[in-house]
């Protein structure tokens, strides 16, 4: 960007952590977290669907809470810890939610999947889901145009059951 433009549109300094890695950046005040991730940092696992907070494809975790990255200005995230799908697991060592999604074939085209997975982890952190109906209600902000909802709910149900039996075994 040339100097004249830089003067007219000053950037703001921003320090934050993404998937455990610290970043020190300069961002424009209008840059969303989604555009920062995808365009500036090339973390393209997080998907842009509607870009208006309606589809949930861009769901990431901010301090463990699920959020639409398209509705979050990056500049508001000073000091925050962000987790995207890239920070959850690897093909060899998947996160339990990723594993359940693969086992239950909880996707077709896969575009909504990173958002579905981050949203599921947010749902688990909130701790309000115990039934399949709860899952359907609490996952309603993540749309799947292929209609894999049945398998998505199956996958999340399994993770919830595993968590419950793990907790019982620990007690």
């Amino acid at each position, binding site marked *: 960007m040339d100097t004249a433009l830089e003067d007219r549109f000053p950037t*703001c300094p921003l320090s934050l952590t993404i998937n455990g890695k610290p970043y020190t950046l300069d961002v424009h005040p209008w840059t969303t977290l989604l555009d920062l991730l995808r365009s500036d940092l090339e973390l393209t696992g997080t998907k842009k669907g509607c870009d208006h907070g309606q589809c949930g494809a861009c769901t990431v975790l901010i301090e463990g809470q699920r959020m*639409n990255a398209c*509705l979050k*200005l990056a500049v*508001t995230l000073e000091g925050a810890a962000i987790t995207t799908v890239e920070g959850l697991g690897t093909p060899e060592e998947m996160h339990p939610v990723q594993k359940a999604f693969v086992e239950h074939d909880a996707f077709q085209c896969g575009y909504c999947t990173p958002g579905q997975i981050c949203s599921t982890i*947010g749902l688990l952190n909130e701790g309000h889901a115990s039934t399949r109906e709860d899952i359907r209600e609490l996952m309603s902000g993540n749309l799947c145009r292929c209609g894999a909802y049945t398998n998505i709910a199956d996958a999340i149900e399994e993770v919830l059951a595993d968590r419950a039996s793990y907790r019982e075994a620990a007690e």
Partner: protein
Amino acid sequence: MRYIRPSSLEDAVGLLANASGKAAILAGGSDLLVRMKGGFIEPDVIIDIKAIDALGRIIENDDGFVIGAAVPCAVLGENTALRNAWPGVVEGARLIGSKQVQGRCTIVGNLCNASPAADSVPALVAAGARALVRGPAGSRTIAVETIPVGPGKTSLAPGEIIEAILLDKRQRHSGDAYQRFTPRTEMDIAVVSAAVNLTLNDQGVVEKARVALGAAAPTVLLVEEAADILVGSRVDDGALERLAEACSAACRPIDDKRGTVEFRKKVAGVLAKRVALTAYQRAGQK
């Protein structure tokens, strides 16, 4: 465009009042960002109010509840005392957007966005909620229904910020409820909506009532003639029929892709009956 994050309300009011160009307040951002992306607003300065501690709290005191302007709607749902006292208000707040959006969005933002279809506003109007407004000229407290004056327009003066929403201490035998009609159950905007707030006497007769309709006119409507029908009744079938007629008659809706005038008028009455019964049951349990 500049981004500023003041740590006191005085600073925020000062920045807003003295801003050169267009200033926008950022709380949850779930409306502001959509409006910016759509090109409907191009602010010269964004004032983020989330660093102002007092605005992020819900306080319960002798007068009732003070809900700070930056409290996300999901937090309202987590507050047991608020949920028990004002279930209808919480119901409305928890219908805005998705779970992700509810983690960010605020009832003050919903109110100031001034959409006639705003989900939290009819329940706030029925509840008799007031807004604590801070501006360059000082503080004032005004009824929530006086804030939206048309789609996207509010009665707030330049430089004014809503600091908090005030809800009265709940009287005995009181209950409120909110429902909306949408073609799908989630991620949709109200085609029409209704909220009712009732206080009963010891015999179960309605002593006080407030009825509000959403997406039925350019602003959320407070329907006093509908409330008058409920007062003195036990919300029996006859009162419900007259309530529905009064609500349908009060509607001044538009025809659009989501519903016709005729449909909205009819459904406003149906929803008013349903929420009146729910509010009556809730009031009877307390």
